[in-house]
């Protein structure tokens, strides 16, 4: 997993609540067996018209947002299906950070496992950042995970909080399976105890 430390880039405003994972990556594009390549179908139902041509009204089809690395949206971002293809599609497109008032639980988890940083900020702040983002290429914002601040184009710093363990893993790009493997003896003894008490759980 790619580490996330600090990012300065273009932010795309998506002033919508309840952006679900079917919108982020529609089910018909889930057939790949790789983690890569989903970016071209990110938000496909908004980005492309029925005939396959680009919809010029959608933010990610406009300059400079085609190069956006941050996405700003409203409440309950990532609700719906648990598909990890949603963060894969964001990442493959180039978006490494999503800022919203809150996130659906599974999506929130999935982001951390893939080096995408979900930042929770109050709705008014999100609205303010969207206004900043509308200024386009001259209005780069910085997301600094080390210091846990978002820096507005005018230099104002907005603090945010990330769970310490997740922050550590993300800053260092660590895979948590390796970490868990170190607890193998505890898992072994758990299984021995459980098997004695609930033998029907073991084939």
């Amino acid at each position, binding site marked *: 997993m790619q580490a996330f430390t600090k990012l300065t880039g273009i932010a795309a405003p998506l002033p919508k609540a309840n952006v679900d994972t079917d919108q982020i990556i529609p*089910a018909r594009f889930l057939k790949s067996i790789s983690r890569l390549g989903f970016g071209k179908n990110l938000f496909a139902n908004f980005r492309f018209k029925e005939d396959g041509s680009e919809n010029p009204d959608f933010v990610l089809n406009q300059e400079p947002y085609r190069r956006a690395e941050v996405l700003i949206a409203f409440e309950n971002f990532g609700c719906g299906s*648990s598909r*990890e293809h949603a963060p894969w599609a964001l990442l493959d497109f180039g978006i490494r950070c999503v800022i919203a008032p809150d996130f659906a639980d599974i999506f929130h988890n999935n982001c951390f496992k893939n080096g995408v940083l979900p930042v929770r900020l109050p709705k008014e702040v999100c609205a303010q950042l969207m206004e900043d983002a509308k200024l386009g290429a001259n209005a780069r914002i910085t997301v600094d995970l080390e210091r846990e601040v978002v820096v507005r184009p005018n230099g104002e710093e907005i603090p945010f909080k990330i769970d*310490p363990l997740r922050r550590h893993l993300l800053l260092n790009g660590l895979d948590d399976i390796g970490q868990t493997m170190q607890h193998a003896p505890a898992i072994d003894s758990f299984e021995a105890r459980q098997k004695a008490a*609930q*033998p*029907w*759980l073991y084939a």
Partner: protein
Amino acid sequence: MSAQKPRTLFDKIWDAHVVETLPDGTALLYIDLHLTHEVTTPQAFDGLRAAGRKVRRPDATLAVVDHNIATDDSRRTGIVDPESRLQVETLEKNVVEFGVPYIPLLDDRQGIVHVIGPELGRSLPGMTIVCGDSHTSTHGAMGALAFGIGTSEVEHVLATQTLLQKPAKNMRISVDGNLAFGCTGKDIILAIIGRIGTAGGTGHVIEYAGDAIRALDMAGRMTVCNMTIEGGARAGMVAPDQTTFDYIARTPNGPKGDALKRAIEWWSTLPSDPGAHFDTEIRIDAHAIAPQVTWGTNPEAVLPITGVVPNPADVADEAKRAQMQRMVDYMGLVPGQRLQDLKVDVVFIGSCTNSRIEDIRAAAAIAKGRRVADGVRAMVVPGSGLVKKAAEAEGLDRILKEAGFEWREAGCSMCLGMNPDKLTPGQRSASTSNRNFEGRQGPGGRTHLLSPAMAAAAAISGHLADVRDYQPKEAL
């Protein structure tokens, strides 16, 4: 230690599965059953292979194909779509390489992962159950802690049989009194989502309680728990009781004899203790619930079938007004229009929400002696091969076919647009599935969610209809 603090059903299952608590409060949680399907696993098995890791407990893992497959005869001659075929073939290779038990496409036990887990007796009370699919919440109806996970977590469970989890908050939703005539588990859960909203349960595990839940059969409880995720909570559960135990006793792979007796003793200790603390409590009067139907593009946009399309102009909040306007436009509606006047093109009875034998019986009861309206395509897709066989043994397939319904093979089918069963742009469907998002059943498709009996009534009348006006003509 003094007498233990009263605990909820969730607390008890959680406590029994914590392997270790990390310094920051994250628990390493043991997983008893891991269900897998073709869409959310290829990248996980790839990860294992790359790291030289094995599947820790193949005996606690089960694989099946459901999302991608055709539900007509073409499944017997091979999958046509090359990408779908590759996904299924990849799973088939992976289960062999990693020694994971697998139910192949042409096996009678094949079906939607959330139908077959309980049906086979693999999903049991007190278990922790995960699957790379958000509707894993379904299995909570067994009195288990069951939730959906992403592909990285699938890989984590395959390798370690554990997950890193933070404890959730407890919510209890009590549905008191008796359900009114014409109402089902589907109407209960739609009414609940209408009340709490699509993010109402975020961060919580919901325990469903009250007389109306106790009175539901296991299929009804599964419907309720299934759509918990649509209310924002990752897991929903119902305390195990005699209904649960009787159901398990009939399953092919559940514990039998002495093992079952011993298990029931254990399971009987699981229900929430009197006085256990719930962070959030909600009470709903069952009798006040009328048959429900969604009108918009998230499950919270739901009304009684007697309702009319709401008017965005009545909404004060600007963002909410814009969202409602978008829903009205996408769904091709006119404010003030009666929901019962909406003509449907397609009726879909199926999905992990409503494809069990009880659901098919409910649809057949309405369909018997009647005809699907002209111009309506109505399909019934059983949740598993075993459901299909049981329905055929009861003659339900014949009743449905005589009424003009298609009778299909088991799978996810039109619940999501990733297999050949799809809506075309602008088509309106009455669907027993769980998501009415834009494009969920195919790009441009318009979905109304409702119960199987309501869906059958829509098929017969050609428009959304009040099931209370379409009572069975003849006994099944």
